[in-house]
């Protein structure tokens, strides 16, 4: 009884962190330039495969995570400066471009990996197996995802609140034209945010490999999860994204353990409900 609940909560928290890693970048990118990045889920999926390949090749788990983050940051910076930047201000063209990139990444991954799912052959021994304090069983890898997620959340929070660039990001989310008029180079800031946000997605994908496996499906699935999380948390609100990810992940796993047929749609039901009842997001509006 208590052990089921504990497992549901641990799994829920771990899922929350994956949700957070995909949604936080998506939310910042949307907040700053109103760009709906349809390729964001593809960066998550590609991060998973990059990490999987690097780990299989080198045997080093952390090198895999690092490689996923860095590779996605570079890819995103190229996409942003090579393609998206030239169509700024044209919302529809940007959506189409990111969609095209998503299409290419999706089919490229299908070409290489097909319908197979892959997981790491080796991960460090201290995150394998389970912990058993009393009646509770804790999967160590999921615990690792939780710790990683909280570290990243803390890092992003500090970046946004303690640095000048973070200040410009938050100001830009409020009113990007005013930030420009005050001398903020929002374009350069955006490139940075786009790269960092995509790196977080890649890192999330890399972390997911050891739990839910790397597969091509991750791309579209996690893109839609990101949509849902940012809607629930309020578009462009970083704290909102974090709390929404927590809420959605835990609800999903509670359903998965107790009312399985509602687990799949739970995130989308939550999203639809928020759009209907509180379109500004659960945490948008009155308090940030």
């Amino acid at each position: 009884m208590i052990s089921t609940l504990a497992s549901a909560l641990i799994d829920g928290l771990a899922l929350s962190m994956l949700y957070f890693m995909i949604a936080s970048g998506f939310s910042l990118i949307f907040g700053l330039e109103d760009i709906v990045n349809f390729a964001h889920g593809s960066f998550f999926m590609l991060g998973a495969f990059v990490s999987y390949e690097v780990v299989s090749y080198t045997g080093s788990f952390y090198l895999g995570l690092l490689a996923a983050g860095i590779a996605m940051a570079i890819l995103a910076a190229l996409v942003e400066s090579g393609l998206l930047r030239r169509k700024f201000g044209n919302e529809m063209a940007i959506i189409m471009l990111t969609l095209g990139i998503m299409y290419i990444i999706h089919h490229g991954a299908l070409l290489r990996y097909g319908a197979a799912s892959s997981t790491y052959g080796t991960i460090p021994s201290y995150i394998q197996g389970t912990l058993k304090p009393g009646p509770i069983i804790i999967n160590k890898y999921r615990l690792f995802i939780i710790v990683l997620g909280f570290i990243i959340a803390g890092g992003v929070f500090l970046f946004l609140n303690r640095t000048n660039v973070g200040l410009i990001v938050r100001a830009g989310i409020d009113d990007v034209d005013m930030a420009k008029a005050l001398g903020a180079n929002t374009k350069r800031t955006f490139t940075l945010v786009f790269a960092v946000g995509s790196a977080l997605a890649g890192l999330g994908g890399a972390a997911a490999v050891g739990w839910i496996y790397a597969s091509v499906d991750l791309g579209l699935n996690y893109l839609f999860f990101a949509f849902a999380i940012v809607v629930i948390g309020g578009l462009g609100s970083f704290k909102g994204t974090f709390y929404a990810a927590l809420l959605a992940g835990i609800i999903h796993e509670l359903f998965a353990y107790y009312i399985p047929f509602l687990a799949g749609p739970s995130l989308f039901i939550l999203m639809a409900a928020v759009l209907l009842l509180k379109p500004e997001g659960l945490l948008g509006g009155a308090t940030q």
Partner: protein
Amino acid sequence: MRNLAKHLKSNSYPLATIGLFFALIPIFFYFNLPFADILTRIFAISIYALSFDLLLGYTGLLNFGQSLFFGMGAYITAYTLNWTEFNFMVALLFSLLVGAILGVILSLIVRRSFKGVPFTFFSLAFVMIILSMFQKRIFRPVSGGEGGILVPLPGILKSIWAIRVFEYGFLGLLAIGLLVAIYKNTRNFSLLQQVPTMLVSSGIIGGIFYFATEHLSYLESAASFERLTANRYYLTLSFLVAIYFLIRRVVSSPVGKVWQSIRENETRTEVIGYNTFNYKLLALAVSGSIAGLAGGLYAPYLLTVSAGNVFDPFITIRALIFAVLGGLGTLKGAILGAGIILLLEHFLNPLIGGWTSILIGIIFIFVVFSMPRGIVGELTVTGGKSFREMVREMVS
């Protein structure tokens, strides 16, 4: 009568005749089943892409849940054929109605965020909820589970009389088209010139009809799957043509004008005194019914309907790519886009396999980048009406 004369004078008439002629080639003169099948698929998908263009290209609503209409249309047709005595036409009517109803329901639910990104997200949520429910065990009786439900072959597709109706119908249209075209082009000829032209043309038409009877007698004795292919081809083509002209009519009607002005600037449209919600609801219902019909037409092609193959958001993404590639808000573009991409896939897949899709992605990005209006849009630049001109038209 005057209306008819006006129609005959218009440019589109000979074009339609030529189009009809080409449309008959694959089955008629060059009996190639796989190729006819790929064209059938293009026609059905084009109908879906048209429904998408109607919504995005004319009303400015990006519906990421468009596959809900398509999928439900496919399921409804499958249900009707499986569980009732109704024929395929009635099944398609049900699919169409369900599409329209779902469009109305979606509009009513989403009324508070009926524009831009929130609408896109909401429509996606709607289809994802249905999709993930349909994949669960407890919905197996309606969804058919992983394997989906079998679509029995509709009788009309197997029948010989349907082929007759289609063939003679299309040929009749073609003959009339040819005669009118020839008459129009020889009106100013002298009698001496007219007589041989008429002789030659009636020879051609007679030849075509002779060919048709031969062809029909072949089809009557042919294997049933050949009849099926021919019938499915004609049927889907007829629907595509009918729906294309219907939508073209609707988007140039006053309602269509309001849709376009909503796309350009919703607030201003509201200020002029239009209840934009009603117009968007109508757009979603019309688009939903067409997408539902497309799903119904596609069902016999799929053989089995499962949640995974009819609700898949990738269907919507592909429709988006077709419509954008051909040119949003041009209608022809949606058909052309579907044609180009599906033909590319048909011919290139055997050669380069999965690289085809990557190539398509690159072509798509190239078009978005350098041809913002899409292929048709760039070829037929009309200068585009300004918002003010549109408003003036609407008010007057």
